[in-house]
């Protein structure tokens, strides 16, 4: 007979000695509950419940982050009465808590900034479902961040896929239905490849818990068995998650899904949903295969090449775009390329830069999408640049926020984007075989970013002499929008100026991550 208490007593990571350690589990179940109860409420009540849940979730994640920083080590939280691999568990460290805190903040701010558009774009009798989907999307994101089990990860990937499609679909128009169908197909293809990978991995290692799989994989590598299936599994995981996070050759669903949906949906989709899968990929790299196994396989080189292609071709597509929201969406493709390039460099510094880019992009892109929504109000809902002439002058708050976001994405010093590029360059110099290509790609992509963001700013800030009538009068006193953009701008400056603190946090987090 197996005594579970011996397992728990042998590993001090299981010890619960502070009430704070319960907070991640409470925040996951609480958002489950509030998501379910949103279905019973009307639109106003669902909105209140959603924001209440996000506020509580933010406080709980922040407390967890502070606790983890104090302790400096990770801990394992049993989900139930049995320790893993028999039961489920979640694993909490500095990096997970940092990601959960910032994701909660970004979600809250993007909903706050796009609230007016949600009420405008979603049919009145279906608005409660919007908040339901957002709450469950948030649940799946934090569960993906905290989980330490591959199958649990798959279940939450499923929830993430369905809710993400639903929030695109909820804007009532023909285009969003087509975009949703494409998004759903591609996303399900990605989940399918991921699931096949999990089942083959279970077949050759016999485990679903990440730390146990790592032992099994190290064993297999040491004895030299199953080398081909292992390589295949890494490929399946990389491609599956690459499709879901819109890595370059698999990005075709992104511009329509992000460009057509309502501004809060676009903000959350590009700021958070894509990042959830990338965090899962980083988890796979560190916890399931181990950095060395991944480094020795050829897959990292492929991710590196795809990342560089995304950085350049995504930007070129954005230059050709005459549609503001689609331009920002293509810019997302390019920015995701930076993350994959950081992972593909195959050293610790590259990973740190990738994690930093996840944060910077999460705090910048939602702001750009929300301000794009505000600009569209000044042009009767048109997204075309020719109608948006002088839009920033009509809504100065949005103009300032867009300028900050654009400067950050171009990579001007003092803003978050610069720090990422600087760190990526340092990481590239540490990997001599890829240094030249990576640095060239960084330079080219920075120039290309400037080529589309600067003209966009010039058009938006141009004096508009024509006296077109505005039907939808921009609500200049939309307090939620102003506050959310203000906090986004502050966060951008914090990430840009106090970056060394965040880099230290990420390095500490990655140390206890594996």
């Amino acid at each position, binding site marked *: 007979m*197996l005594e579970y208490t011996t397992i728990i007593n042998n590993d001090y990571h299981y010890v619960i000695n502070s009430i704070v350690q319960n907070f991640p589990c409470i925040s996951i179940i609480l958002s489950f509950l509030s998501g379910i109860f949103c279905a019973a409420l009307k639109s106003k009540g669902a909105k209140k419940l959603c924001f209440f849940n996000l506020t509580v979730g933010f406080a709980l994640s922040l407390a967890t982050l502070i606790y983890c920083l104090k302790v400096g080590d990770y801990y394992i939280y049993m*989900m139930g009465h049995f320790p893993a691999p028999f039961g489920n568990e979640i694993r909490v460290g500095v990096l997970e808590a940092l990601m959960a805190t910032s994701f909660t903040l970004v979600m809250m701010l993007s909903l706050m900034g796009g609230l007016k558009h949600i009420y405008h774009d979603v049919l009145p009798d279906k608005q409660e479902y919007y908040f339901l989907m957002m709450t469950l999307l948030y649940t799946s994101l934090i569960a993906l961040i905290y989980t330490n089990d591959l199958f649990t990860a798959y279940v939450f990937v499923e929830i993430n896929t369905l809710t993400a499609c639903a929030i695109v679909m909820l804007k009532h128009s023909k*285009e969003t239905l087509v975009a949703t169908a494409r998004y759903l197909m591609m996303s399900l293809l990605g989940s399918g490849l991921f699931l096949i990978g999990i089942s083959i991995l279970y077949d*050759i290692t*016999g485990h679903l818990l990440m730390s146990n799989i790592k032992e099994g994989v190290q064993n297999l590598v040491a004895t030299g068995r199953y080398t081909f299936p292992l390589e295949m599994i890494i490929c399946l995981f990389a491609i599956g998650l690459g499709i879901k996070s819109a890595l370059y050759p698999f990005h075709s669903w992104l511009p329509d899904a992000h460009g057509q949906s309502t501004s809060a949906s676009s903000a959350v989709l590009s700021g958070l949903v894509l990042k959830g899968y990338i965090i899962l990929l980083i988890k796979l790299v560190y916890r399931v295969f181990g950095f060395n196994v991944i480094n020795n396989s050829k897959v990292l080189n492929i991710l590196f090449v795809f990342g560089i292609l995304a950085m350049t071709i995504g930007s070129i597509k954005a230059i050709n775009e005459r549609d503001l929201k689609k331009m920002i969406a293509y810019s997302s493709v390019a920015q995701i390329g930076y993350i994959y390039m950081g992972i593909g460099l195959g050293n610790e510094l590259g990973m740190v830069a990738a994690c930093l880019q996840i944060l910077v992009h999460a705090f910048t892109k939602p702001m750009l999408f929300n301000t794009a929504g505000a600009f569209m109000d000044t042009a009767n809902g048109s997204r075309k640049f020719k109608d948006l002439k002088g839009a920033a002058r009509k809504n100065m708050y949005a103009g300032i926020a867009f300028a900050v976001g654009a400067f950050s994405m171009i990579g001007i010093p003092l803003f978050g984007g610069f720090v990422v590029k600087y760190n990526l360059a340092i990481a590239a110099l540490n990997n001599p075989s890829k240094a030249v290509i990576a640095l060239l790609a960084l330079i080219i992509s920075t120039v290309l970013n400037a080529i589309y963001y600067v003209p966009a700013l010039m058009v938006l800030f141009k004096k508009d002499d024509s006296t077109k009538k505005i039907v939808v009068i921009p609500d200049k006193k939309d307090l939620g929008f102003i506050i959310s953009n203000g906090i986004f701008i502050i966060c951008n400056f914090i990430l840009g100026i106090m970056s060394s603190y965040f880099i230290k946090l990420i390095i500490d987090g990655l140390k206890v991550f594996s």
Partner: protein
Amino acid sequence: MNKIFKSLNDFVNGVQDEKENVHLKHKNKKHHEKVLTERIEDIVESGENKGFNKFYNVIAILLACVIIACMIYTVSFLPSFGDPTNPANNEVVQAYIENGIRDTGAVNFVAGMILNYRAFDTLGESTVLFIAATTVIILLFKHKTKEEEKAEQLEEAKYEDKHDLILRHGALIVVPATLVFGVYVLFNGHLSPGGGFSGGTIMGAALILYNSAFGDNSTKTFFNYGIHKVIKISALSFYALSQLYSFITGANLIESIIPNGIAGNLISSGLILPLNICVGFEVACTMFGFYSLFDREEI
């Protein structure tokens, strides 16, 4: 059935009319002004891209073949099925079999595994069902005014065949038996094969059969949108709350106050029986909801 054909016909006609209009419109547009659907139409209409399409198809088929070959090659490496020395037959499986009854009180190991050992995953799975049902509601559900509802009922009365004696008498015999069997499978989930997912599916099938035999009005007397909502929400929230209790006591090493009971009794195995019932109701509601929404855009 007739109604479905009719609406399908209307839909096709409407789309054709619209298509002609759109055609005239988007001939005058420039490329970057067109939406995605119009671009696709353009590509299909114009012959310019035919060469590219052929090339694209050939490449796609070749790529698919390569991937299939790789997959099959991978499978050839895998350990053979049923071999006792397989990596999957490890201490985890052994522990489930040896300690399953002591730990969970469930004679059915699968129920013990999905609802006690790995209850967090199953909470996620039932939420997937909830989300799927909600998504279909978002797509298809129509809030009807009373006048619309009346008009619809009149329309319905034309097509509803009230004298389908074989279906009605058959349903009278089959529906109660199916329902009872569903409840049996649900309540014996911890004792015999079955449980929430299978029992719920059987119950949902019984409801669907009842609905197609006796019509909407008689179904609505005991199962309407309000009741559907209440059952769904209360089942899932009970699940989440009980799991919150179980997770927090488990992680803090506090003994749960819910007794496991004597293995083999109907009322035993702690939380598994109520959770099975919750999952079952959730699945039945989702099944019937899908059918009803696709059939007539309401529940």
